[in-house]
């Protein structure tokens, strides 16, 4: 993997990273204050988010300009690709926590509450009358009665939307490599459109859950795992769709060549990662 570093581009003055830190710190201090019921919380949060938006726009414009003016050689490109791959690995580990939580509660802690293993006495004295089933909101019937989310309505449609978007994304990539800019832009537009459509469907699904099914984040362990997993995934779909929108915008401006299009690749990898997580969700959260 070792590459010659003779012309490796080392930037010399970095002002965006400090602004990024300031933005994130302000956002988080704001959020923490908001959670504590302080009135300045939301103001700080909005200010922090605004800094972050400015920072992202500025930093990515800088990167795009540097890339288009040929400042990055092969070695720099390899570093960026490695960076993106390891970032996605860290994201996989983040989702693994919540999948692990789902597995642990379904297969271990809920059955234990029902008396499985060596917990017959605990069950008898603490939670008698509780039968371990899934979905459940626990022996305390936390959050009240709810209906679990079925798999074959919007979720199935969403699966099809995301899988299709993976195909259109690859189709766009083929267009880029074949120097067919029209195909690139059409493919990316379709991908971005399908992505946002997915988010819209999920919003409808959440709305139904809250208003008609009694299913909320507070519906015991089922509600907790359901909304945490699908919520973080939905957030990642939003982020991925925004990244793809930027790539689409750059494609329309004539950026990228068949040899040099790291931003496209990174966005595509991220998109496929989000896609695969959804398949996991569809199987373990909705189907099983």
């Amino acid at each position, binding site marked *: *993997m*070792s*590459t*010659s*570093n*003779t012309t*490796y581009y*080392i*930037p*010399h*003055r*970095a*002002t965006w*990273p*400090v602004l*990024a*830190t300031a933005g*994130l*710190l302000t956002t*988080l*201090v704001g*959020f*923490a204050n908001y*959670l*504590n019921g302080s009135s300045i919380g939301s103001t700080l949060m909005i200010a922090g988010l605004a800094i972050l938006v400015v920072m992202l726009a500025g930093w990515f414009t800088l990167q795009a300009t540097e890339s288009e003016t040929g400042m990055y050689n092969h*070695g720099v490109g*390899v*570093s960026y690709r*490695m*960076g993106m791959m*390891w*970032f996605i*690995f*860290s*994201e996989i*580990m*983040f989702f*693994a*926590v919540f999948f*692990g*939580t789902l597995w*642990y*509660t379904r297969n*271990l*802690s809920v059955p*234990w509450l029902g008396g499985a293993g060596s917990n017959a006495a605990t069950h008898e004295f603490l*939670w008698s009358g509780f039968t371990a089933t899934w979905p*459940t*909101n*626990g*022996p305390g019937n*936390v959050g009240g009665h709810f209906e679990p989310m079925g798999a074959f309505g919007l979720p199935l449609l969403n699966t099809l939307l995301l899988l299709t978007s993976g195909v259109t994304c690859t189709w766009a990539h083929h267009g880029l490599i074949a120097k067919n800019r029209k195909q690139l832009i059409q493919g990316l537009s379709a991908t971005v459109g399908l992505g946002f459509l997915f988010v819209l469907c999920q919003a409808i699904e959440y709305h139904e859950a809250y208003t008609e099914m009694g299913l*909320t*984040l507070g519906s*015991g*362990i089922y*509600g*907790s*795992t359901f909304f*945490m997993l699908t919520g973080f995934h939905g957030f990642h779909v939003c982020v991925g769709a925004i990244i793809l929108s930027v790539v689409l915008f750059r494609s329309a401006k004539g950026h990228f060549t068949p040899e040099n299009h790291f931003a496209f690749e990174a966005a595509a990898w991220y998109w496929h990662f989000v896609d695969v997580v959804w398949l996991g969700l569809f199987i373990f959260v909705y189907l099983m």
Partner: protein
Amino acid sequence: MSAVTAEHGHDDHHDDHAHGPEKGWLRWIITTNHKDIGTLYLLFALAMFFVGGTMAMIIRAELFEPGMQFVDPKFFNSMTTMHALVMVFGAVMPAFVGLANWMIPMMIGAPDMALPRMNNMSFWMLVAGVLLLASTLFMEGGAPAGGWTLYPPLVLQTGKALPFAIFSVHLLGISSIMGAINIIATILNMRAPAMTLMKMPLFVWTWLITGFLLIAIMPVFAGAVTMLLTDKFFHTSFFDAAGGGDPVLYQHIFWFFGHPEVYVMILPTFGVASTIIPVFARKPLFGYSSMVYATASIAFLSFIVWAHHMFTVGLPISGELYFMYATMLIAIPTGVKVFNWTATMWKGAMTFETPMLFSIAFVVLFTLGGFTGLMMSIAPVDFQYHDTYFIVAHFHYTLVPASVFILMAAGYFWLPKWTGHMYNEKIGQLHFWLSAISVNILFFPQHFLGLAGMPRRIPDYAIQFADWNMISSIGGFIFGASQLLFLWIVIDTIKGGTGEKVSDEVWEDAHKHGLEWTLPSPVPYHTFSTPPTVIPCDHN
């Protein structure tokens, strides 16, 4: 065995010098230079070492005698919690990242880190995270006081500090992940062409593996504390049995992070020790490849042993047995390492400069900490040790006379290279002997206290524990005061040290052991703008 010095004349007069260091204080804010960022990390870590150390002094002062003397119990518990968090995330980890920043590009013949802007961001995210953590000390309800493990449901009783502490963990996680990605990309992508993987210095190897650990575990910790946040503020039931959750689940997730996390602090320690010992033993490392494989084995095992921290929580018996045997396995690759260091010194032409003294003390005292670890791995016996001072003694032996000693050794070892000045050897030796003796007065009696049943994280104790606690506290005060010598040495060496001009290789024949010793002392702002063609390699 033979080593050829790389040419370095081009480093001094290169057109790259149009980009020298920025003038004024702004240099330290917007720098992308790996040496500047390394310095920032190291100085920040040193500052936090004294902040965390002050907290430890408060703890030892309160425990000097039975009864309540100086602080109230709540604040005492905040001190134990914050001492741990500051030392782990503010001092030891950043210190090793600082060493990685300074040394890895120079050791592998790279012009800088692979992603210099992100390098700057990792550092400032760390500062932001630690600031957020420190701010909790001044909040209504006090800083987190439930232990650094942040176990629910206890930690959910924290006052206004809770969301700040949680977001601090998020920021520290982001910082660590970005730092780790950068280090991995640098090692895999930026090596000089002749620097094959199996020629890399062990410090580079241990950081490659540590980087992988960090990327794998920091998101896990982030996920765990996120669930704490939603349990507290958004009505979820992850860790609440009434809703079908389980507080023990948090412990599993935490220790899935936490066990590899302690190896994040010890693997680079091994790497530095494996770099220093051969130089002063004037022999190549005894078994280079076995060290690489041992490091990788320890990293792998670290992911499958986490529940040995939870033997008394009520695990199924099969779980207890599995985690007991798996944990014992760690002794094998660790033993490979200890024998390696010993064999490296065997029949070597040894000299005992301060870095070597700290390294030898590390080998001896880390082994002692390792042995108590082996004792605790035995599940039925651990029922007695669990949550006692025996545990405190164990992990402090693996952290203070191991990680911290090696960080000191690294400071003495590389300061002359970084600054071009020699440190004061007499004061260095005094610092070593005071530290090595007092650290044992401080922590060895804690084994006895623990075995006799003294629980950890308590501000007051039964009268029977009085004597050993007083001795431990006296050791603590001597140890704490001795570290001021190190602070003095760092400042003195930066300002000129003994005035002696150090050579490029600093230590006798050090150029046989690593590329960094082929560069001028002090090291120029930019090094290896073109990769070296020949690399020293004293192992094969």
